[in-house]
């Protein structure tokens, strides 16, 4: 019994946790697909999906079939992947930068993405040939490149890297503001604002496929390096003395997080809070060791984001609240409870 307490659960318990959380995630996605201005029963949702997969040939209205498959299911799955990806990136950066406030956008990725997006929306760079997503992605990587350059390929230590990220964020935010104020009109400014706060409206299956590949690959790399991440608990030098190739691990993981974050931001905007809070919540439940923490972050992040997306559509009828607003509105009280319960026992 002590053995299980020490490891936080044997393989059986871990498997049970994964199955349970997988079931919760499926249920949340099903709810997200059923709930909306046009309500559809869960049974119909199930049949619509099995119809599309060629498993059943049930008679359901074409409109419901289309709403379920073409609009809501892809949206719910993209939300799940985005939540999972942001939460993993947050956990990785908190470990590498040894900073509880680190989150996926700390390396300037979201600021760069918004500059890229603004270049496309306002300046019309690419003249229609270049999509908003492509512009955002290019901007995100430009910002990450600048941070990597300023921090000598991320070898200069956590604080140096954080400062480089702050500098890059400031620069790209200033560029965004400059472009919007000098050449944007009011409508464009609102578009930009709305995009920055994040939205799952308009995502379709190709988005899901791209994101699936990026997030799954990213998670795989991170899990492969989970043990090395644990070794950073007492800092870079300590990790090195445990045989971890510190410089290489940092660079690879920074690049992976930048890649995953940039893909998510360019697709659905800069959705805040998830990447900061979910890792803390998950750590509170499964502990700080990354082989367990990362899968937990993926599941909790996915569930949280799907629920937030449902909330964003039902809080105000006929209107969708920006997802970034919901994640903070729902997340802060939830986080406050954790902070309160985890307060140091004086």
């Amino acid at each position, binding site marked *: 019994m002590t053995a299980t307490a020490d490891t936080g659960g044997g393989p059986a318990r871990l498997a049970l946790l994964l199955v349970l959380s997988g079931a919760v995630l499926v249920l949340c996605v099903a709810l997200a697909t059923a709930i909306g201005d046009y309500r559809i029963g869960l049974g119909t949702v199930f049949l619509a999906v099995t119809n599309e997969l060629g498993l059943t040939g049930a008679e359901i209205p074409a409109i419901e079939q289309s709403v379920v498959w073409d609009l809501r299911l892809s949206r719910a799955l993209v939300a799940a992947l985005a939540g999972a990806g942001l939460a993993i990136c947050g956990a990785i950066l908190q470990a590498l930068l040894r900073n509880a406030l680190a989150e996926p956008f700390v390396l300037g990725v979201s600021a760069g993405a918004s500059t890229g997006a603004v270049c496309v929306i306002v300046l019309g760079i690419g003249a229609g040939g270049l999509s908003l997503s492509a512009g955002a992605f290019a901007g995100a990587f430009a910002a990450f490149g600048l941070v990597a350059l300023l921090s000598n390929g991320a070898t200069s230590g956590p604080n140096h890297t954080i400062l480089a990220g702050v500098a890059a964020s400031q620069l790209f935010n200033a560029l965004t503001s400059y472009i919007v104020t000098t050449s944007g009109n009011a409508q464009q400014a609102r578009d930009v604002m709305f995009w920055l706060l994040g939205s799952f409206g308009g995502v379709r299956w190709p988005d899901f496929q791209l994101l699936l590949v990026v997030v799954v690959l990213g998670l795989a790399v991170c899990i492969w390096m989970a043990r090395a991440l644990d070794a950073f*608990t007492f800092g870079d030098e300590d990790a090195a*003395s445990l*045989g971890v*190739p510190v410089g290489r691990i940092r660079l690879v993981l920074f690049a992976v997080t930048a890649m995953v974050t940039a893909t998510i931001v360019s697709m659905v905007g800069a959705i805040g809070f998830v990447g900061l809070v979910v890792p803390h919540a998950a750590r509170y439940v499964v502990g700080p060791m990354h082989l367990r923490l990362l899968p937990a972050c993926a599941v909790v992040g996915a569930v949280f984001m799907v629920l937030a997306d449902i909330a964003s559509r039902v809080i105000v009828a006929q209107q969708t609240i920006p997802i970034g607003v919901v994640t903070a509105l729902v997340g802060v009280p939830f986080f406050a409870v954790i902070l309160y319960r985890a307060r140091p026992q004086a």
Partner: protein
Amino acid sequence: MSVVAESLTWGVRRRTIVSDVSLSVAPGETLGLIGPNGSGKSSLLRLLAGLRRPQSGRVTINGRDIAGVGRRVLSREVAFVQQSAATDTNVSVLDVVRLGRTPHRSALAGWSAEDEAAVARALARVDMAGHRAQPWQTLSGGERQRVHIARALAQSPRVMFLDEPTNHLDIHHQIEILRMVRDLDLTSVVALHDLNLAAMFCDRIVVLRGGSVVTAGTPEAVLTEGLLRDVFRVEAGIGRSPHHGRPHIQFIPG
């Protein structure tokens, strides 16, 4: 395992911090590194442990140049204990000691009986077996240092480097830690500030000043009134302790 340094030189930008240092440590020996602040003790330790690459010179451990050994392979034989390494992460004592098995485990390998045994031995060695589940943040300074040493022991090293392991500890814990290090069946190199402790627990002592070796030898040979005046800029009387037979330094206020 023996550790031999041959004309190590290392610096940052134009400033030379370790200058042409040669020394050797015999298998099983406890070597003390002493010297005033800024004399290069910590930097020399890091060069010896392979955490920094010397600009010139080389370090051999058991006759093998460590520059040609991968970091992971090296860390199965060489452990390094930093001075008061800290974390904000809410880890348990067991989590920390288990980190010591990092160089012995592949990325996804399970937890082996050998790993478990090494961790249990290390915890027992530092007398922290009863604290396995205790959160790191609730440990006292002495307990933290013992856990760090346990983590280093869990690496199953043959050589251990310790950078001022007695910093911030009360005298009881200082003595306890150093006695433990001396009694370990390992070759160890310890940077120390307290000269009396160095005299009590080290087989040999190397004295550094300005990045260079001033002298090296047994505590009796090295610790002289002249050396304390020259290197440490203090007046002192040195006698032989009737309790442990080692040199005992009494400082004389100027």
